[in-house]
């Protein structure tokens, strides 16, 4: 028998990602697994807020929209799906998924992974990694979620789950778990964990590997960006990964796109800490193998850290952003004067607003489909936009910033227009480390017409 091999696809790289490329992967790529990464740092804190208001919510609000498109295809084709769309409530997300599968008559098994919520046991006097101050000093704490690893997902895969819904799990672990399970890897083996973590790190942002967030016209051209396809990886038992994308999709998968994604958000290329491994990227080899095919080998791993990172959400106050435009001759000086007027009117409130003028260079604009190229040169009319932003726990005070910018209409310099004001509550995020032993992941299986907890 030849060396084992599996194909894993990336179906979402953030909560707002497009769905069509994932549908295309399911239909045409003959995947074994599809992973959807949809959980940014503070998304879970926002989910926690929703859950406090309604115990049946707190998971990704787009979960059902996505799954209604994806699961009928995935279950029909036998593609296993792993996602962190459970956010602050994986059990409720699992139950919703179960109902959806029942509705379409699928016997597929759902598993919810929990245990990342450590708010009840967290020492709030522990220092934040960011500034060394005690966690509780930052504000009212509303959430605390540990980054679980691949080992938390493993029991769900062992139990035969077809759809796995998690809360906070380290992004690469969402990929490492199904890879290791398919390929018979031991998660305790740093070499395997490193290889799978590299694949997960490269795939976790979906289209960012295949030419999304890459194009720079005339310098880095990406064909068919509007029809950007998402990536998959063919991974073999020895840890070799061949990255690819579907034919007849837009985008670009090259040594350049892979290297950009490889170092994305890496704060130490020799020691990238995940719950599964300490990864060394420095000796990786990235080799193009023809069009839209790149081979990645050479990941080095050291044993996983003893402590897990915890993302802690706190109430940081209310933020307002207010803007107004000035156009034409002397636009910059009128915008600056407007900023000075707002600053003077807010003086003494205790607010420390950020006041800035953007632009001064003509901006292209259009009403229809095409943005007129070269418009700026034909009509060199300067455009400036004053922006005032502030943050405070005093909501009423924050609202006055918007009022003062709007008041520039009749109480400010000549010719201001296009006021927009936005405000909302801000959840801040700080982090800390806790011993691995204080986190207890659990899996809840939800089989067809049944929902029973297991160890």
């Amino acid at each position, binding site marked *: 028998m030849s060396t084992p091999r599996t194909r894993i696809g990336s179906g979402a790289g953030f909560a707002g990602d497009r769905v069509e490329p994932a549908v295309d992967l399911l239909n045409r790529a003959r995947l074994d697994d599809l992973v959807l990464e949809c959980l940014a*740092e*503070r998304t879970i804190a926002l989910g926690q807020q929703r859950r406090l208001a309604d115990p049946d919510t707190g998971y990704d609000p787009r979960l059902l929209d996505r799954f209604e498109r994806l699961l009928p295809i995935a279950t029909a084709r036998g593609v296993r799906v792993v996602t962190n769309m459970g956010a602050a409530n994986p059990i409720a997300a699992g139950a919703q998924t179960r109902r959806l599968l029942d509705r379409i008559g699928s016997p597929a098994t759902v598993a919810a992974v929990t245990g990342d919520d450590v708010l009840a046991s967290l020492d709030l006097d522990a220092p934040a990694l*960011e500034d060394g101050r005690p966690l509780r000093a930052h504000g009212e704490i509303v959430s605390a979620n540990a980054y679980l690893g691949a080992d938390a997902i493993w029991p769900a895969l062992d139990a035969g789950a077809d759809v796995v819904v998690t809360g906070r799990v380290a992004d690469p672990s969402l990929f490492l778990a199904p890879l290791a399970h398919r390929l018979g890897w031991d998660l305790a083996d740093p070499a395997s964990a490193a290889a799978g973590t590299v694949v997960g790190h490269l795939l976790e942002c979906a289209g960012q590997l295949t030419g999304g*967030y890459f194009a*720079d016209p005339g*310098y*880095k051209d990406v064909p068919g960006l509007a029809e950007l396809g998402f990536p998959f990886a063919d991974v073999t038992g020895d840890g070799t990964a061949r990255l690819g994308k579907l034919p007849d999709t837009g985008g670009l998968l090259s040594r*350049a796109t892979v*290297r*950009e*994604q*490889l*170092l*994305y*958000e*890496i*704060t*130490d*290329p*020799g020691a990238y800490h995940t719950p599964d491994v300490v990864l060394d*990227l*420095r*000796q*990786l*080899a*990235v080799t193009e193998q023809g069009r839209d095919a790149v081979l990645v080998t050479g990941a080095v791993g050291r044993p996983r850290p003893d402590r897990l990172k915890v993302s802690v959400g706190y109430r*940081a106050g209310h*933020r307002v952003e207010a803007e107004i435009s000035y156009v034409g001759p002397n636009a910059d000086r009128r915008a600056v004067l407007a900023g000075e007027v707002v600053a003077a009117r807010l003086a003494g409130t205790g607010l420390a*607003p*950020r006041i*800035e003028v*953007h632009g001064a260079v003509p901006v292209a604009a259009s009403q229809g489909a095409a943005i007129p190229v070269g418009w700026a040169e034909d009509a060199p009319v300067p455009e400036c936009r004053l*922006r005032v*932003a*502030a*943050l405070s726990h005093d909501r009423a005070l924050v609202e006055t910033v918007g009022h003062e910018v709007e008041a520039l209409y009749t109480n400010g310099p000549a010719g201001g227009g296009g006021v927009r004001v936005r405000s909302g509550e*801000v*959840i*801040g*995020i*700080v*982090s800390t480390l806790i011993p691995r032993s204080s986190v207890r992941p659990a899996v809840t299986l939800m089989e067809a017409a049944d929902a029973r907890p297991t160890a």
Partner: protein
Amino acid sequence: MRVLLHELAHCRAGDKGNTATLSVFPYDDADYPLLVRELTADRVRAHLASHVGGEVVRYELPNLVALHFVCHQVVDGGVTTSLALDTHGKTLSSRLLSLPLDLEDRR
């Protein structure tokens, strides 16, 4: 000859809280030694002075033909509580590419 870094290299920004990562890749691998020589951590720190308040650490990655800069204490950083327009600092990559390089006749 004075050229912008943009002519020689491409860059990707990433963010972890108020730390920004900036990875720089020459279009032509042969320009890597030039980037190692010219694009020091101090130059990057100076060019981004109004945006980066803390230390800039440079990692040389010859195997990947990349320079990787880890910038600490991004001003107004912290995705969640920042008052900046670009709360992530994603546009720092293009800011870095506007860095001018004074080159002798290269080849």
